[in-house]
């Protein structure tokens, strides 16, 4: 016990100053703790220090402060908002729109993503609140947007049709099909509509909610309609319809009411709708005009229409004028046609052009191909033997080939056809070549025949006159006897190259073709008969072996005795002339034969009857025993 007491005393003695210090420290610590736990006291303490730190603008210190404060900022804002929402709203309001703008400028995509749900929600809310105002705001835009979309769609359709037009070649049906596709109306109805028109009997601009008539225009030519009753009824019907026919949460619009031959066509805007009483089938041009009218009314300044209170005098003058224009317009099929003319004409023109161009193209192509084949085939034939096939002509008509012209013989005929077949295997070959089995040209034939005639003429009793007439060989003259006559005929008929042979050869006697004609009641030779006489003299000289009978004739007029004397006198006169020309008198026999010469085929003409004719006779009668 004593020991422990002493130890205590010793400890007190040794540690007393430290204990005192420790107790002092404890007190001071408690004071500091209290100071720190009281924010106000603490703030007072550190304020000057913070101010000094911030004043120094030391980056390290700023960063440290920022790090310390940042996690608290959102909480601070939230807490402050909870405490006093209004104050916070006012504090942020001046910068909020600017902040959105900056946000959009810096990161447009992110901003758009952030805003998108808000925008659609805002529009929905705005539509819920002020549906009519919203419709009016959008009406001009939506109308033209739809028009633009439609016109683009139509352009695409037209383009597609362009590509296919060649495979459908019926003008009327194509145009109708096209229109049918564009409009979605059956072809039959389009056909019917083409002959239709429509007339606007009246137009009423009606306040949507009250059903009161804001403005109206009626066609003076038709019985007037009571605007107030009609608009009221229409509004009631429209309201009932729109309420009963909602689709989801969107009301559906009644756009047309038909009765008898008339229709009431409705075009609805935000605060009003336009009702047009139409006779006939509403055409596209009419509907377009109706929409234009509504669009224009919607865009008129002022709110007298939106907040119509029954006073028509406050409505802008423009409104009734627009309605009047709508009523006075003409919306017939002619109008439709006029607007579509460029299309129609283009289509019709294109189809017509194709209808001409395609067959023409095919024809020209085939023609060119045919000519090319002709040239190729002919060249091939000529290459084989240019001389023999010089006169070969090749004609090609589609898949038929014809060979024209002449070849010398059957062999060449066959070869030409075979060569043609080799160069156009597909073609059907028609060989129209003619064969000249003797290589004789007409002039050659004539020469040959004349040469033969000349040779035969050297025989006594033979006189031959050889002529080539249109390719026909004609030989006439005198033969000494029937056997010789036959041989002579055979010789000429078998001459190579002779197409046809006519024989005028006789035996015994042969009448010379030339006759001498006399004037009426005269035996005098006329100057014009000199050539004939010369010819007779030549023949007589060439046939010294023959006798020449001169026969005088007369016409049938006058007395027989006189005619006898004339006939004989004419023959005697010619005899004298021939003798004077050197013909031996003993070769000449003279006869008078009153009346015309015995020509069965000749017409009996008096001027021709007054003549003298000549017969070569062999053997001579005087030679006969």
């Amino acid at each position, binding site marked *: 016990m004593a020991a422990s007491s002493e130890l205590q005393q010793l400890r007190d003695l040794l540690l007393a100053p430290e204990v005192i210090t420790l107790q002092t420290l404890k007190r001071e610590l408690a004071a500091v703790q209290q100071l720190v736990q009281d924010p106000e006291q603490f703030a007072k303490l550190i304020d000057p220090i913070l101010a000094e730190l911030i004043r120094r603008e030391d980056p390290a210190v700023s960063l440290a402060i920022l790090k310390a404060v940042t996690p608290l900022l959102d909480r601070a804002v939230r807490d402050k908002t909870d405490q006093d929402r209004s104050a916070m709203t006012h504090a942020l309001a001046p910068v909020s729109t600017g902040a959105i703008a900056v946000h959009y400028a810096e990161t447009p995509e992110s901003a758009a993503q952030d805003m998108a749900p808000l925008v659609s929600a805002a529009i929905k809310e705005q539509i819920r609140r002020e549906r009519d105002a919203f419709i009016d705001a959008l009406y001009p835009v939506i109308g033209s947007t739809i028009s633009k979309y439609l016109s683009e769609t139509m352009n695409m359709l037209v383009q597609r049709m362009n590509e296919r037009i060649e495979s459908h070649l019926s003008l009327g049906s194509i145009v109708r099909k096209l229109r049918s596709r564009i409009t979605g109306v059956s072809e039959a109805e389009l056909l019917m509509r083409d002959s239709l028109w429509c007339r606007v009997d009246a137009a009423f601009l009606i306040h949507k909610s009250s*059903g009161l008539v804001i403005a109206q225009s009626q066609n003076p030519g038709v019985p007037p309609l009571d605007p107030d009753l009609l608009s009221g009824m229409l509004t009631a019907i429209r309201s009932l319809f729109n309420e009963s026919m909602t689709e989801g949460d969107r009301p559906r619009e009644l756009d047309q009411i038909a009765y008898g031959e008339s229709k009431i066509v409705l075009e609805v805007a935000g605060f009003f709708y336009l009702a047009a009483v139409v006779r006939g089938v509403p055409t596209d041009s009419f509907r377009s005009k109706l929409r234009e009218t509504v669009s224009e009314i919607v865009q008129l300044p002022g709110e007298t229409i939106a907040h119509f209170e029954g006073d028509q005098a406050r409505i802008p003058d423009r409104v009734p004028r627009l309605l009047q224009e709508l009523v006075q317009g003409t919306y017939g099929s002619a109008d439709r046609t006029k607007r579509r003319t460029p299309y129609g004409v283009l289509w019709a023109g294109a189809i017509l052009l194709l209808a001409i161009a395609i067959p023409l193209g095919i024809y020209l192509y085939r023609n060119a191909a045919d000519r090319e084949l002709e040239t190729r085939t002919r060249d091939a034939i000529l290459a084989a033997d240019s001389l023999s096939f010089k006169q070969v002509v090749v004609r090609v008509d589609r898949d038929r080939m014809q060979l024209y012209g002449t070849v010398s013989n059957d062999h060449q005929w066959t070869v030409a056809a075979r060569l043609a077949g080799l160069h156009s295997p597909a073609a059907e070959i028609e060989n129209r070549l003619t064969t000249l089995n003797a290589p004789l040209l007409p002039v050659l034939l004539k020469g040959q025949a004349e040469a033969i005639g000349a040779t035969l003429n050297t025989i006594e009793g033979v006189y031959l006159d050889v002529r080539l007439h249109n390719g026909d060989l004609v030989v006439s003259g005198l033969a000494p006897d029937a056997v010789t006559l036959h041989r002579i005929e055979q010789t000429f008929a078998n001459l190579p190259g002779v197409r046809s042979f006519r024989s005028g050869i006789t035996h015994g006697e042969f009448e010379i073709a030339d006759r001498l004609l006399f004037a009426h009641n005269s035996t005098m030779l006329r100057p014009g008969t000199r050539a004939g006489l010369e010819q007779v003299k030549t023949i007589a000289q060439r046939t010294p072996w023959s006798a020449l009978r001169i026969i005088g004739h007369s016409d049938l007029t006058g007395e027989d005795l006189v005619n006898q004397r004339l006939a004989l006198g004419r023959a005697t006169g010619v005899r004298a002339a021939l003798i004077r020309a050197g013909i031996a008198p003993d070769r000449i026999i003279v006869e008078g034969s009153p009346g015309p010469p015995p020509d069965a085929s000749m017409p009996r003409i008096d001027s021709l009857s007054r003549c003298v004719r000549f017969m070569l006779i062999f053997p001579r009668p005087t030679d006969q025993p």
Partner: protein
Amino acid sequence: MILAKVCVLGEVSVGKTSLIRRYVDRAFSDEYLSTVGVKISRKLLHLASSPTGNETDLQFVLWDLEGGRNSLDISATYLKGARGAIVVGDVTRSSTMEGLQGHIVRFRDVNPTGRVVIALNKVDLLAEVNEPPADHWTDSPGVLALMSTSAKTGSGVDELFTALGMSILQDTGHASDL
């Protein structure tokens, strides 16, 4: 000319159509658009509207709304845009009188600035005409007047419509005083 849509409301067979017929004096078709539940008629009213003696024309477009078993079902769209309402009750049937308030409230819901006149119809059937408890009705907002009418005799009919017309004109700013 001022146009004014006026709805005529009331229970079935309180005499709405007869009242209108009496007022309009057969100037309308008798055909009821029963499927839609409404009949439209109109009446032109000349009102001397100002101290200068200017006359103003007021065209009433009267919507006679079919009083069904539950006529409060009448579509709000029918009531829309109306400047005034004539709420009709049959003085001989208390049930129809009790329904008046419902019609007034319904009309004012759709048209908060709309004016209402109350017609206590068929007074000709009563042995003696008691003055209606006016204060009870005129407390309701928008109610201009309450009148005893008889479509049969014509009593009170013109006054009813004229009162409504004057009020509407005053609203529109065409009437300087009443």
